[in-house]
């Protein structure tokens, strides 16, 4: 059973590493900090990098292949990409379904 805390740690690490590698000034204060939107420096290209890296890390660590950016994600009333925590919730849900 993959714990939500493990996924939170994985996503937080990926976001930190990716933004640092791409030279983006982005500090994660808590899980409810906005991730993708008008008030953050994370644009669509950075978000693509984050999603690809999260999918890759999940595959490497847990041997599970999931697609985060799917129709399901984009059709939600509340975007799973709005905060770290919403991405953690959504990813946990996908991992449990797989």
């Amino acid at each position, binding site marked *: 059973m993959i714990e939500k805390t493990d996924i939170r740690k994985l996503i937080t690490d990926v976001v930190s590493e990716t933004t640092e590698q791409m030279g983006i000034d982005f500090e994660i204060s808590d899980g409810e900090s906005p991730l993708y939107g008008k008030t953050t420096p994370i644009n669509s290209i950075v978000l*693509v*990098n984050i999603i690809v*890296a999260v*999918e*890759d890390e999940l*595959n490497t660590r847990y041997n599970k*292949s999931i*697609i985060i950016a799917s129709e399901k994600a984009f059709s939600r009333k509340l975007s799973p990409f709005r905060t770290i925590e919403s991405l953690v919730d959504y990813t946990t849900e996908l991992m449990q379904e797989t």
Partner: protein
Amino acid sequence: MNIIITGSRTGIGRAITEEMLNRGHSVFGCSRGNSDLQHPDYTHFELDVADENAVKQLFDAFKRKHKELDVLINNAGTASMNHLLLTPANTVKQIFETNFVGTFIFCREAGKIMSRQNHGRIINMSSVASALHLPGESVYAASKAAVENFSVTAAKELSSFNITVNTIGPGPVKTALTQNIGDEKLTKVAEQLITQKRTQIADIVNIIDFLIDEKSEQITGQHFYIGGV
């Protein structure tokens, strides 16, 4: 280099695969059927290129074996030569599934690996049929036109990751795909090209060599029609 080639069991894909292996590259290939190609640097997957889960499994296996993906060649394709008035809608769906959806899925999965390594070359096989608007090939040509249009936009979206995307449109080549077309018809198609010659495998390999060359990092979003249209 580490290369993925779709439709590698027969025809152009098989010939390209053998050429790449001869050059010392490592190739992951796939097709709907089993391959008799035996080579220490060749791995074959039996799958339908439009089957998203099967394709993901291929990429998972690729990542377990290789750290980097240098080149993707989307070659898998199917054709149905028929007058549009006699073409069932299911045939249209099948052709688009293989020729376009398959190409899209492979581009997406390869793009994920290539974006992380910050380099990569994607070559999508098109056809002169797209530019020549050949009667009897409306659906096949439309599917290849979709591949061409998609490739240019993909080139723009992937450019910031140093990934190039180009298409190669061969003229008539005698393969399994064209086995039901007579020699006379293939010659007639060739006569519509600037060179009026049939395409040889060497012509296709020549462009692949150019596109995967280190110096071709600025060549992207282009269509290369062999023989000229």
